[in-house]
């Protein structure tokens, strides 16, 4: 119903503004309904302003800025309606070291209510996972799982190499 939608929109927009500021370390991001005769048809526009830059269309953002803005929106929706688990496949690939740090910090925090499965090649991202699942193809073309439980981040490095 329209009422439920606008309640969700308002809540998610508030979350988005907060998460955007956290992930970018400043600036502002928000959602806007596009003009339309029939409110039930109106689309959603995303406005992003990284710190120190002008307000602009999300398509002018850089590769890393786009990924970070999309993650902020995703987290905003999750905060409103947590889903039992979340699978993120190499979303950290376009991010620089500093932004991977902010991203992993946020995921760690949210992992208290939602279980995260992160597919990644980044050692920094591996470090926040208490459990690492190595996938190998010792027999060419056939995948197997080698699961490792560990706590010390340093182990992540050697498992990832071993799975290679």
């Amino acid at each position, binding site marked *: 119903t329209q009422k439920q939608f606008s309640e969700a929109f308002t809540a998610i927009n508030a979350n988005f503004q907060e998460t955007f500021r956290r992930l970018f370390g400043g600036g502002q991001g928000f959602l806007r309904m596009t003009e339309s005769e029939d409110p039930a048809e109106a689309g959603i526009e995303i406005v992003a302003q990284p710190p120190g830059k002008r307000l602009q269309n999300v398509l002018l953002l850089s590769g890393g800025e786009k990924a970070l803005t999309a993650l902020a929106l995703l987290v905003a929706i999750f905060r409103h309606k947590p889903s039992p688990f979340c699978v993120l496949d190499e979303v950290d690939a376009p991010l620089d070291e500093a932004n991977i740090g902010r991203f992993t910090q946020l995921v760690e925090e949210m*992992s208290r209510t939602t279980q995260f499965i992160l597919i990644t090649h980044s050692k920094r991202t591996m470090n926040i996972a208490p*459990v690492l699942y190595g996938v190998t193809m010792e027999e060419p073309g056939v995948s197997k799982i080698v699961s490792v439980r560990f706590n010390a981040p340093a182990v992540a490095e050697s498992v990832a190499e071993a799975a290679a």
Partner: protein
Amino acid sequence: LKLQKIELLGFKSFADRTEITFNGEGVAAVVGPNGCGKSNISDAISWVLGEQSPKSLRSGRMQDVIFSGTPTRKATGLAEVRLTMLDPEIEFAPAIVRDDATPQNGDHGYRAAARSGEIPGVITVARRLFLSGESEYILNGRPCRLRDIQEIFLGTGLGPDCYAIIEQGRIGQILSAKSYERRALIEEAA
């Protein structure tokens, strides 16, 4: 709901029965060299939750998800994925709540399924596809329809086109989607 286990058999590169057990919370990382099968696991999860489009599973036809063999291994005739999930509220609920499997008001779709599971509080969802094209959905060990699975996960963010599974290379797509497509994302969570 918590994800406890994924079992794959003959799904893409997982030729042999493979089990991945999760501890139900926190962060799990999946690692390994290029082409070893990491994204195939994410495809398996979308598939068992009801994904109908082969293209979203990086395939031409749906049968492409069945293990197609290697130079030293024959193809299998079947792909099967099973998810085991826990509903902590039922798991620890007193016996009388468990016996009443009919959905109660305000219950999540999955609550009823959790009550009626072989082990109370545990929901298993499975999907099978045969080379012939025949496909089956299985809920708590009993055949069901796709609709039954979709209804269970309604509103939890799981299911096809959901925001809870982000495929490789598609994180930017949320931004470049059309404004009415973004609306659907919010509607799903409303």
